[in-house]
């Protein structure tokens, strides 16, 4: 596609705005024309076009690796474009740093939360612009007050003084959102802000986004969840393989059309759940407790069964899974796999017993970000790959080749660093890493976080088929449709306790949410 073509396409295309107030002849709030970006031999963006109007929420969709985040990073000043035009309010701009972009009124929520782990929630939100008192020092009281207000409005009141380190990934996302909202920017970019959130917080976030739009701001919203996109956004831009495909008013298109434009074919969005014969108990958890995190958790998972842990963000699902896998210690209770008892703090033992674990935070827990794809994939099977105690890169590459291909990881080469992959492809590498261990029980914490539609149904099919072959699956997901579609059995976690167990037939969105949210008997908060 030539430069002129795309420009015309972007400007003269059906760029429909829902706000009649703005006249079409007025300059757009933000405009990208034929922007390109290469990383060495990789062309991440070959033809990026985007026209964001005031008073609008503009969705950008596309497969994993389509270049959405790259576009965002160029807007945010993190990457400089190789060529093309970048206009803000009709004026050409050149950002050298993220600070430039911020100063120009652009706030970005990046795909992966990047907080300062040692700083408090409040400081993470206000760093660099903390309020001062009369005496020229940071007004912590005001900062904390504002933070409390801000997070409460987002539906997740966080203690402003809590260290970001101790936040769950969802809470971190909340802080990111609070940060950008408080910036009072004209352009707010959200790169998959909802990937780690569950229903309630997503609703709040959408409320915030709408409010921002009503104030006259422009919001760019990236998501792989089409229900969100269609209920929230006014305009949709589709990207494929680093290039602009189309821009449409939401009212003019439907989901199938968008997906076709994205992947170039029809994709079945339904979860292809396969009914299977349930076998022997593989995992048996009894009375598992960890002070302050969860207590008295008992359940089992059988071969061929998919068991989902559902619940609100922060309910302690991840903690339970991690204790089962042995990365975290616990205070009491037992974990048995195939009748053999495992010990806390020994994930190697759990792996030997046949457990695989796809953790929720791929950047910190799943991947060595600066290591290559191959070494990431083969890390968990390094002992098996060694021949007579000798492990060679050749053997590793062969194994990695196989698994990367099976999961269709989009990467230039096997020694490409994980940082250079798009978010969804990183997730695939983590999946490959754990599937390669050929486990008896696979624990998956948020399996499809950040994965595009096509791949998502692939992953679901994969999980389902694996279960069909007798693999026991323990899955944690904040996406209710995913839970309802995949699970044979649903265990609802609330405040560290199992509050309900629902079979596939019993489960509905309503009763899962009810079990997850039903407030405990009101208790006096004592100081």
């Amino acid at each position: 596609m030539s430069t002129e073509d795309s420009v015309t396409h972007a400007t003269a295309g059906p760029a429909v705005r829902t706000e009649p107030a703005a006249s079409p002849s007025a300059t757009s709030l933000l405009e990208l024309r034929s922007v390109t970006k290469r990383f060495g031999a990789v062309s991440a963006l070959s033809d990026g076009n985007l026209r964001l109007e005031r008073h609008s929420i503009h969705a950008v969709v596309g497969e994993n690796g389509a270049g959405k985040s790259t576009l965002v990073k160029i807007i945010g000043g993190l990457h400089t474009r190789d060529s093309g035009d970048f206009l803000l309010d009709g004026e050409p701009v050149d950002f050298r740093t993220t600070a430039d972009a911020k100063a120009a009124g652009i706030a970005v929520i990046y795909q992966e939360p990047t907080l300062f782990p040692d700083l408090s929630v409040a400081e993470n939100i206000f760093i660099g612009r903390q309020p001062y008192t009369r005496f020229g020092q940071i007004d912590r009281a005001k900062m904390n007050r504002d933070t409390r207000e801000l997070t409460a409005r987002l539906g997740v009141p966080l203690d402003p003084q809590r260290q970001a380190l101790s936040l769950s990934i969802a809470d971190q996302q909340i802080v990111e959102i609070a940060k950008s909202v408080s910036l009072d920017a004209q352009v707010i970019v959200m790169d998959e802000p909802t990937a780690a959130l569950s229903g309630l917080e997503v609703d709040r976030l959408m409320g915030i986004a709408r409010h921002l739009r009503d104030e006259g701001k422009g919001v760019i919203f990236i998501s792989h969840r089409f229900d969100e996109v269609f209920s929230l956004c006014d305009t949709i831009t589709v990207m494929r393989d680093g290039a602009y495909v189309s821009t449409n008013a939401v009212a003019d298109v439907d989901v199938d059309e968008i997906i076709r434009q994205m992947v170039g074919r029809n994709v079945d969005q339904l979860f292809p759940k396969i009914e299977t014969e349930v076998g022997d108990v593989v995992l048996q958890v009894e009375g598992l407790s960890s002070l302050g995190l969860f207590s008295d958790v008992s359940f089992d998972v059988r071969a061929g069964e998919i068991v989902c842990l559902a619940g609100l963000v922060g309910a302690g699902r991840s903690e339970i899974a991690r204790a089962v896998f042995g990365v975290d210690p616990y205070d009491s209770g037992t974990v048995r796999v195939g009748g053999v008892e495992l010990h806390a703090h020994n994930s190697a033992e759990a792996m030997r017993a046949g457990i695989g674990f796809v953790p929720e935070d791929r950047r910190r827990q799943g991947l060595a970000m600066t290591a290559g794809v191959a070494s990431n994939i083969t890390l968990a099977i390094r002992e098996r790959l060694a021949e007579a105690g000798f492990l060679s890169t050749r053997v590793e590459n062969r194994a990695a080749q196989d698994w990367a291909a099976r999961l269709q990881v989009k990467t230039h080469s096997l020694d490409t660093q994980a940082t250079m992959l798009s978010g969804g492809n990183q997730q695939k590498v983590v999946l490959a890493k754990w599937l390669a261990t050929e486990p008896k029980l696979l624990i998956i914490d948020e399996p499809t976080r950040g994965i595009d539609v096509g791949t998502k149904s692939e992953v679901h099919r994969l999980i389902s088929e694996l279960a069909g072959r007798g693999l026991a699956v323990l899955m944690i997901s904040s996406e209710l449709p995913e839970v309802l579609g995949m699970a044979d059995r649903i265990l609802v976690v609330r405040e560290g306790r199992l509050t309900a167990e629902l079979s596939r037939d019993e489960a509905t969105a309503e009763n899962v949410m009810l079990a997850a949210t039903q407030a405990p008997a009101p208790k006096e908060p004592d100081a």
Partner: protein
Amino acid sequence: MTTTTTAPTPTPAPPAAVKAQQHWLERVVRARELGLALLIVALVAGTSAVNRPFLFSSDGWRSLLTLPTILIVVAVGQAAVIITRNIDLSVGSTMGLCTYFAGNLFHQVSGIPTVVVVILSIALGAAIGLVNGLLVALLKVPSLVITLGMLYAIRGVDVLWVGGNFIRPEWLPDSFQKLSTAELFGIPYLFILTVPVVLVVSWYLRNRRGGREFYALGSDPDAAVLYGLDTRKITVKAFVLSGALAGLAGTMYLAIYVSGDSQVGTNLEFETVAAAVVGGIAITGGSGAVWVAALGAFLLGTINSALPVLGIPSLWQQAFVGAFILGAIALDRALFVTRARRARALRSHA
């Protein structure tokens, strides 16, 4: 840039039922300085119980407060650098060079006021810090490598420059020599000079935006870039501060020991790192308070002078110092772990 929030209230905000009990809890968890202060008190009390003059004599009191000041000042700078997830191994060499520089100034420029010498010495230290900082920030390479290189390079320059010379007492004006013994209301001058240095740096790091950025950078350098912090400026600031404080310490060394050759400040780099770590500065950056690091330095400085007084055989003193450093960080760790566990228990029953 407005700092007020413009967040809308699309749905009525739920009552901010924020766990209020975490306030004091977290504060207690973080109160590492308590253990340190107790250790210092115990050490001083114990030593003076064995030997009253250690504390209860004019020179005992004075040297107790004066001798650790050099380590304190340099450790404060080191702590600030470590907070940004860097390290400054060149502090010892910098201090050594500044000591000779200051002494030589007194010698070459007769009648030069002490203040000018101190300022020039600080300036020299800051200039070295600037070189460190610029190299680290512009080349984007680990500070350990740069400052290790500077450790060698500056020491080499020092030895080349000083050559066969050394600072002779008569070079230094009487007023300057009296500095280390002068007192105000019974408190040694050098200590009085040190306290504001510690307080100002502490205050800056705790209560100014620029200071908090030190913590942000150290906490996660990648996030700092994403956020748009000027990481180069912060890095340079930290190293300039460290260098300037090493320069100041150089003149303090001159005042206390009234001498100096090309070996002044050898091995100081590890001592300051140890002091900072004993003072609860996380070696991985992002957390800790410099005034606690100053307490750590005070503790290490005191133990060096307490051991001989306690009658520990001279030959075994180094072993004791090592054991003490280990004990202090292990104790700190133990206290932290038990407090954290208690806090966790409280949270679950709240």
